């Protein structure tokens, strides 16, 4: 049996099925992703990195093939179960921070925990622990529009961590960052990995995928895995 955290078998994803613009973004991907390590998916734009990531992270269901999370098949679950897994297992750091404007830092951070129906004080306790850890405590009640780039980034990371996910997903996290922020981000990734998280990152930014913190590199091209190193 397979003891990897994530195990993909022949995963394909086809868009616009049966229509003239049908396009297969993933063509039979088989892959194992080990726990407690940082894996980076690299490849040119359009090679299917983002699609792979969203399929793994239960944002979209594969058209065919199987995905196992801790040996449990998750590829053909209905949406409510996918959402459950998504919120308990995955934390997301998006390309643009994707914070919801108009809400405060604190409100943004607790959003993923909202459907859990936790009691208020527990939620706040968790949130403040994270804010403390990421040096945002005095920003808690600020609207997110007014944050600096670094603060916004840390808010996004706090939000990804509020439900204590085992796997942190980051899609092109450095695409909109200057080099100082990228360095800070790498630092945080190292910390997270040390704290026992599994990292799954896509990037074609050499600063990220050449970093020492990355344990495994998966190279993709045209929806297929080219090489694993």
């Amino acid at each position, binding site marked *: 049996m397979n003891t990897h955290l994530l195990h993909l078998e022949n995963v394909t994803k086809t868009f616009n099925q049966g229509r003239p613009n049908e396009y297969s973004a993933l063509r039979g991907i088989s892959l194992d992703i080990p726990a407690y390590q940082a894996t980076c998916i690299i490849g040119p734009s359009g090679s299917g990195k*983002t699609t792979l990531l*969203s399929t793994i992270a239960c*944002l979209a269901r594969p058209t065919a093939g199987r995905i196992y999370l801790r040996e449990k098949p998750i590829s053909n679950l209905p949406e*409510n179960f996918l*959402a*459950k897994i*998504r919120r308990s297992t995955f934390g997301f750091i998006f390309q643009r921070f994707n914070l919801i404007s108009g*809400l405060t830092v604190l409100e943004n951070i607790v959003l*993923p925990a909202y459907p859990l129906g936790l009691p208020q004080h527990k939620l706040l306790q968790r949130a403040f622990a994270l804010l403390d850890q990421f040096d945002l405590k005095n920003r808690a009640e600020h609207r997110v529009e007014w944050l600096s780039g670094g603060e916004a980034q840390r808010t996004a990371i706090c939000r990804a961590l509020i439900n204590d996910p085992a796997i942190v997903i980051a899609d092109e996290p450095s695409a909109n960052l200057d080099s100082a922020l990228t360095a800070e981000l790498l630092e945080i990734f190292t910390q997270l990995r040390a704290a026992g998280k599994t990292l799954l990152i896509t990037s074609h930014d050499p600063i990220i995928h050449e970093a020492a913190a990355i344990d495994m590199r998966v190279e993709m091209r045209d929806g297929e895995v080219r090489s694993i190193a």
Partner: protein
Amino acid sequence: MASLLRRKGKNLSLLLVYTLLVFLLASVLLYTQALRKEATLVLANSPEIIVQRLVAGRHAFIPAQYLKQLGDVRGVTYTQGRLWGYYYDPVVKANYTLMATGNKGLAVHEIAIGAGIARTRQLTVGDYLSLRNARGAPETLRVKEILYPDSELLSADLMLLNPESWRQFFAVPQAVYTDLTLAVRNPAEINKVAEKIVQRLPDTRPILKSEILRSYDAVFSWREGLVSLLLSVALLAFVIFAWDKASGLSAEERREIGILKAIGWETSDVLRMKLWEGAIVSLTAFLSGYLLAYAHIFFTSAALLTPILKGWAVLYPEFHVIPYIDYLQVATLFFFTVVPYAVATLIPIWKAAITDPDEVMR
């Protein structure tokens, strides 16, 4: 939730239109209900049976000797002849109801008038009013009293005269009345009494109070229904408006829903949030609309509606009713406004809620 408040601007126009609609509907409902109450109040004091004489199918004067014959019918406790008629006043282009009465202590050429007449002709006690009698000659009448009864609805256009003056004014002979009224001892016997009257005096038609009440009720219901039907058209427009509002999802909102779903929300969580949002808008609009209508009807005497529902009558009655809340009416109003709104927004809300979460990754 907080996210609703942020889009205040977007919801504001909806809220306004919504409140206006509730306000209009509630005003109509409250107003007709109040009118109906008034009418019932008035009819409560009216006689149990009115007997008219029909000649060739038309209402004709009834001979005074019928009074005696009716008094002999078993169960009838009291009989009285009434004299009344209409008078068209070309000065204000309105009809007055002229009625004879013996118990106001009116002398010949003295009258008591309803508040509506007093208002339009600007009369006070002691003033003189000149009307043309049946022979076309002017007749000058002195206002002895102005009537301010509990309900103005039926007495606004009323003018009371002494019976002698009345007969003189309309040139009606002594031995006849306009109609006769009866009182019956036992309400359960009213139908029996009416039957006997028709048997004894086949040229008469008895009219029962219960019949009048019922037809009043039906007429008011019907009017109210008609107006509601018109407002339903407005409602339809509103529903289309709400649908449009709900389905016009901005890119910003789509992105937000995408984010929420990506970070672990489920379609039903988004649905729930959106339905709450709709519920809050609905309840706010409903409550404020109803309260406004309530104030409008009961504190300003329906300033905006009066001309429409009562017809453009010159002598329209002014009336103040005691404020009250009828729960059936509140429920009806709720069904009329909140339910169609909810239905109109359900599908757009669902469409928004199924936004693909992986859209935010692109």
